């Protein structure tokens, strides 16, 4: 998880955000016909009478899409229930049928949750199956939807299976909204039902934003933000919208319920479709499709095959290591939690395991580092057989070519540097360099630092890098505090 600064809203106001996330399922074919579900084909090449809504054509639902939907439902801890498809009627050229087939009163998945890395729980109202619409390109007016002269429509995407994941209006900060969307993406990738690429539109976010006075539990008029194409763009759009609404309230006005289009380049949103068209979809049950009734066996099989999901993986690593939530989230995101747990299980020190993974294994490919060799390396470091510097060097070689950390250490001549040996060396060096030592113990902060560097450098040269720099610094500080060495004392 990337570090970020939560933008502060004007004093006394808080955010209320609900997100609708549309995810394209990575099936081979569309939801109701055998046309290819493929991104980037030539326009209007994946079309047939069913997805064009030609008279007399009949839809048959894709069994794989329904299975993926239920898998996602269980991953979101939803109830998976019998469902009925419905028609959502509207006139808009992106749907040639003049209705979108979706789920309305009886969705497949409802009442779930996603737990964020910091423990915040996002309620999921529903995650229903529906078909995607065609893609419109607006010509004229600089490509802006509300200034277009005409539009060109490509129906390759019409009928592609989607899941719409609707959160409850419970997101209270922009950081939580960001963590939720990246958490959803991690879940989708873990179960493999979508490639979840925001830049290709296979994961799209609409944000319902309202504000309220801090401490109130009312839900005020919300605006729905569309055309958000990255997590960063979502954060900007939400912040802009919250400030716009607060400005309205503070100047005695109130926002209108409306859909607004986010313009990433301009950094602002503009009003889109008006409310009256939005609210009158005249849903009715789809007469051409029969109900979807999952069996208890099917749901049990989905649960049994469910891979470990990010939230559970984070919880396991926190339990084993007591590391901070954000560090654990980073390791899980990098897929290093299994390695960490295996090494800790083999007796390696949990703190050291987490530290080495976090700082010294920030690489794309760590497949050559086995749990056994990594655990052995950490044990060598914590028992003092290797200094921190040496351990990092051995780890780098494990990443490149794998192998046994003991043999690597032996080949490089990394031998145990015992504490008393190091102390002797330090004392000899102090005796040989009395002027430098006086500047170390009596000098100003800058002098002291410079001389510490001098002594550590000398020790490193004498030991060919085997000494632990921090141990030398500790010894110098300790000797410097002793009255026998003429220091001001403690």
């Amino acid at each position, binding site marked *: 998880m990337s570090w970020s600064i939560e933008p502060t809203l004007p004093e006394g106001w808080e955010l209320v955000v609900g997100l609708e996330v549309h995810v394209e399922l990575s099936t*081979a074919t569309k939801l109701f016909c055998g046309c290819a579900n493929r991104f980037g084909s030539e*326009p*209007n090449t994946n079309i047939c009478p069913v997805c064009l809504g030609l008279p007399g054509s009949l839809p048959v639902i894709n*069994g794989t899409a329904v299975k993926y939907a239920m898998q996602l439902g269980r991953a979101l801890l939803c109830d998976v229930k019998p469902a009925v498809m419905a028609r959502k009627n509207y006139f808009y*050229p992106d749907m040639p049928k003049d209705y979108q087939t979706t789920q309305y009163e009886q969705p497949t998945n409802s009442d779930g949750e996603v737990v964020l890395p910091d423990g915040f729980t996002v309620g999921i109202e529903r995650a229903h199956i529906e078909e995607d619409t065609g893609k419109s390109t607006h010509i004229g007016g600089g490509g802006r939807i509300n200034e277009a002269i005409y539009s060109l429509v490509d129906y390759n995407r019409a009928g592609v299976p989607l899941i719409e994941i609707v959160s409850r209006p419970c997101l209270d900060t922009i950081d939580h909204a960001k963590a939720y969307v990246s958490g959803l993406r991690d879940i989708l990738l873990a179960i493999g039902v979508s490639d979840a690429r925001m830049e290709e539109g296979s994961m799209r976010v609409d944000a319902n934003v309202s504000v309220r006075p801090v401490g109130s539990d009312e839900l005020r008029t919300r605006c729905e933000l569309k055309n958000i194409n990255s997590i960063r763009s979502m954060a900007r759009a939400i912040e802009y919208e919250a400030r716009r609404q607060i400005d309205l309230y503070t100047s005695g006005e109130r926002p209108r319920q409306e859909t607004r289009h986010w313009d990433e380049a301009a950094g602002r949103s503009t009003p889109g*479709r008006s409310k009256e068209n939005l609210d009158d979809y005249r849903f009715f*049950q789809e007469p051409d499709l*029969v*109900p979807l009734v999952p069996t208890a066996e099917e749901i049990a099989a989905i649960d049994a095959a469910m891979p470990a999901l990010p939230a559970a993986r984070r919880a396991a690593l926190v339990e084993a290591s007591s590391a901070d939530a954000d560090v654990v989230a980073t390791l899980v995101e990098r897929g290093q939690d299994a390695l960490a747990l295996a090494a800790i299980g083999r007796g390696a020190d949990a703190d050291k395991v987490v530290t080495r993974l976090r700082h010294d294994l920030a690489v794309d490919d760590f497949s050559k580092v086995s749990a056994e060799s990594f655990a052995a390396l950490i044990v060598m470091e914590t028992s003092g057989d290797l200094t921190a510097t040496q351990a990092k060097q051995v780890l780098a070689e494990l990443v490149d070519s794998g192998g046994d950390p003991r043999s690597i250490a032996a080949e490089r001549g990394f031998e145990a540097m015992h504490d008393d040996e190091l102390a002797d060396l330090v004392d000899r060096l102090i005796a040989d360099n009395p002027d430098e030592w006086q500047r170390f113990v009596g000098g100003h902060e800058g002098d002291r630092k410079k001389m510490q560097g001098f002594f550590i450098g000398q020790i490193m040269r004498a030991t060919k890098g085997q000494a632990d720099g921090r141990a030398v610094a500790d010894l110098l500080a300790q000797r410097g505090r002793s009255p026998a060495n003429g220091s001001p004392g403690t």
Partner: protein
Amino acid sequence: MSDRITRDEVVHVARLARLELGPDEIDAFTEQLARVLEHAADIESLDVDDVPPTSHPLPLVNVFRTDEVRASIDRREVLAQAPWAESDMFRVPPVLGEEP
């Protein structure tokens, strides 16, 4: 005239369905739709407390298609039937700002 449906409701529904109706047609459909609704209201006289809601008339559930790609149709044939095509796409009026 029945109070099952008002003239304004008929106008609203016609507008949603993009139907342009003249004053005589609005009157005629208001009367006809009211009769349809009157007929449906007969159900209200029955005791249906023990009848589960029916979502579908067919005794069928879970009819699935295998996720296998089938040939699509030739876009030239389809686009030739469009009122207006450009760059292998359907050309349509601007979608916002138009009267519904």
